[in-house]
């Protein structure tokens, strides 16, 4: 990334000005995830000016993209060469950007099988709170030179700096896909998923709710065929199945959709990230289980105390993904030692505290 790029120098000037005035900035891509995390504050800093694919070589399995590039545009380019972002980042609406994907760190149904956003970040070029342009990581998969700052940016909600350009590991799209459905209750589904996890099966995603377990197989045609015969579920029509997985990935399924009235009624969406083997969790409302049991979505009116206790009892944590009242904190509280490290990191990356204040934790 060239330091004298006009789009970039414009951003640097804004950062330096904000630093000098101590004025917060809200880093904005497509604005599709404004609902996620603490309430955005500060003057919007539009990242759309910094867009385009800087380099893409399918044989290197790496793409380098500027942060304001629309995720849809990137995925279309990858698809032309038979490749994809295997972790299926959600596209809440068409304007979502690559920078927003990294900042939010959210991954879709395939997460448990292939890893998340941070596992696919190879390098970043970023602006810190002093307006300095810094590069960490690179364009190669194996790289242990210095601390892995680039991966720290994934899921940081933009509080450490502005990701200007990111290099991502990409993979070939699976050659064969099939979706099977099983009529099983929650306990049976979790038990079955646990059993399959320790076998060499090409299970790429799973989702359970209301007595039905969907399992997606993906990989070499021979492996998918063999697993289909072994697991013996009802096969779903491929197009119908693709739309169903997409509705989970992009949060268009009704469990994720919130009208203003729903929010006003106090309805919220909790994401409980737990060990996959955790026993069934009971909260008021409706549940959807993904990631082979490691992600349990609850939509209802559970109080923060209740959701957080249920998650931590089994060694996990709960995030308030949708909800009107965020006074309980969106992300689960940290231990004093981790909080201190967070505060110090924030201070070293962004001494004036201008980037996305309050988006991750209210304190910074």
């Amino acid at each position, binding site marked *: 990334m060239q330091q004298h790029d006009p789009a970039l120098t414009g951003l640097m000037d804004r950062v330096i000005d904000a630093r000098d005035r101590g004025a917060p900035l809200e880093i904005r891509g497509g604005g599709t995830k404004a609902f996620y995390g603490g309430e955005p504050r500060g003057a919007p800093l539009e990242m759309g000016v910094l867009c385009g694919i800087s380099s893409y070589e399918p044989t290197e399995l790496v793409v380098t993209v500027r942060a304001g590039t629309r995720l849809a545009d990137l995925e279309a380019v990858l698809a032309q060469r038979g490749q994809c972002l295997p972790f299926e980042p959600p596209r809440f609406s068409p304007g979502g950007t690559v920078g927003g994907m990294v900042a939010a760190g959210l991954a879709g149904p395939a997460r448990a099988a292939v890893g998340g956003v941070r596992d696919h970040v190879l390098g970043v070029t970023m602006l810190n709170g002093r307006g300095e342009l810094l590069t960490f990581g690179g364009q190669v998969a194996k790289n242990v030179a210095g601390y892995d700052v680039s991966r720290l940016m994934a899921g940081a909600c933009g509080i450490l700096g502005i990701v200007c350009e990111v290099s991502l590991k990409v993979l070939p799209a699976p050659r064969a896909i099939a979706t099977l459905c099983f009529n099983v209750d929650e306990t049976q589904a979790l038990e079955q998923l*646990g059993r399959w996890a320790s076998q060499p099966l090409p299970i790429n995603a799973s989702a359970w709710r209301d007595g039905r377990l969907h399992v997606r197989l993906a990989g070499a045609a021979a492996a998918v065929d063999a697993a289909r015969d072994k697991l013996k579920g009802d096969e779903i029509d491929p197009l119908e199945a693709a739309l169903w997985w997409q509705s989970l990935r992009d949060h268009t399924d009704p469990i994720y959709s919130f009208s203003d009235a729903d929010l006003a009624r106090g309805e919220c969406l909790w994401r409980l990230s737990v060990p996959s083997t955790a026993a069934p969790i009971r909260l008021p409302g409706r549940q959807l289980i993904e990631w082979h049991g490691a992600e349990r979505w609850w939509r209802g009116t559970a109080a923060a105390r209740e959701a957080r206790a249920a998650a931590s009892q089994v060694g996990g944590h709960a995030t308030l993904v949708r909800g009107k009242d965020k006074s309980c904190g969106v992300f689960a509280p940290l231990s004093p030692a981790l909080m201190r490290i967070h505060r110090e990191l924030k201070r070293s990356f962004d001494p004036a505290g201008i980037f996305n204040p309050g988006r991750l934790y209210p304190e910074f």
Partner: protein
Amino acid sequence: MAALAKVLPRDAVLFRHEDTVTYECDALTAYRTSPLVVVLPESDAQVAAVLKVCHALGVPVIARGAGTGLSGGATPHLWGVILSLARFNTIVKVDARSCTAIVQCGVRNVAISEAAAPYGLYYAPDPSSQIACTIGGNVAENSGGVHCLKYGLTLHNVLRVRGFLADGEPVEFGSEALDAPGLDLIAVVVGSEGMLAVVTEVTVKLVPKPQQARCIMASFGDIESAGAAVASVIAQGIIPAGLELMDKAMTAAVEAFVHADYDLEAAAILLCESDGTPEEVAEEISRMEEVLSAAGASRIEVSRDEAQRLKFWSGRKNAFPASGGISSDYMCMDSTIPRKRLAEMLRAIEDMQSKYGLRCVNVFHAGDGNLHPLILFDADNPDELRRCELFGADVLETSVRLGGTVTGEHGVGVEKLNSMCVQFAPAERELFFALRRAFDPLELLNPGKVIPTLQRCAEYGKMHVHRGLLPHPELPRF
């Protein structure tokens, strides 16, 4: 010493020279420092107590596993304490349902796979030192191995680490779930070479052992077509379980060592492996064969059975000892470049051989661009050692110029401090220091490693530009 003796049993504190001499260096034996004292705690409470004592006295602490590191990450500090974690060797739990294992940091890498084997599971990252190296060391270095293209690095296979901060406060990064709240700190702790925290317990992911693995050995008449073949395999959407390359000189060295019937005429040999269910492997192997022959392979052989597969690999696995057989000493380099620059890099190394008057043999994790040139030299000849270090620095700087990095999997330690000046600008190095201080404000954990000071880089730049040769290359420069 008196303070340490109060918190540890008598046999857990070593201070006589004959007891501490084995801790003078790790596998980078060129750098040696006599440690002031070595402690061997056996419980979390003792580790915390040691850290509190050292923190109160401002004494550096260097955590150490098996000492197999190749970059001097565990080199002692002149007035520091070596915290050996060798006694933390218990496998706490193997859970087949969640496909995880909880192990203490001193457990050897291969011991995890052995403990998981009855459940049909194993721990995927397999650095070549896996029979000796510990999981704690793997976490410190973010170790790789020959299968990372498909299975990832240590970071991708670790869920949670527990341990202590420099002041002895207990801390936990990551969780048994797939993510943890807040910043993803485990991403920086893994690979931090013991400078952010002391890790005593690790929760790793286990994966089902593939039912079958088969390997193709393909010969190429020139380096360019071997490099192009690597690219075509990937372009066809194939992710091999392993994809390794050896050049002609290396093939000759290993053939003399293992007698595996390697093609000695080939300019380069590729080993390309597929693993999975028998159906999957059959499908993938036939696609690989097609791609490799279209890429101009002059000879292709597919392993018929497990014995033959292991024979194909025997040379690659013995590349280092085989090099020891043809030279009294060798220096193993470890850089990564984009795969497409492979031929260019090997040509550059060829030129360096005549420039520095030393021979070099090459093995390459071709699948992920990680190069291990072994520079052959005689350590008893000071001039050869000097030329070898210049040769090594040239390889690293060429790697950066080609879009790569100065270390793919061995770490920076003390060995690559100078090269870090080339790869990172002052503001980037300053941020590394600041990040380090967020975890360890007094900079007591493994000081002097990974990040070169501004002064050191200035000195290196000056020496580099004005003289081209490093004076006193034997001196470590912190």
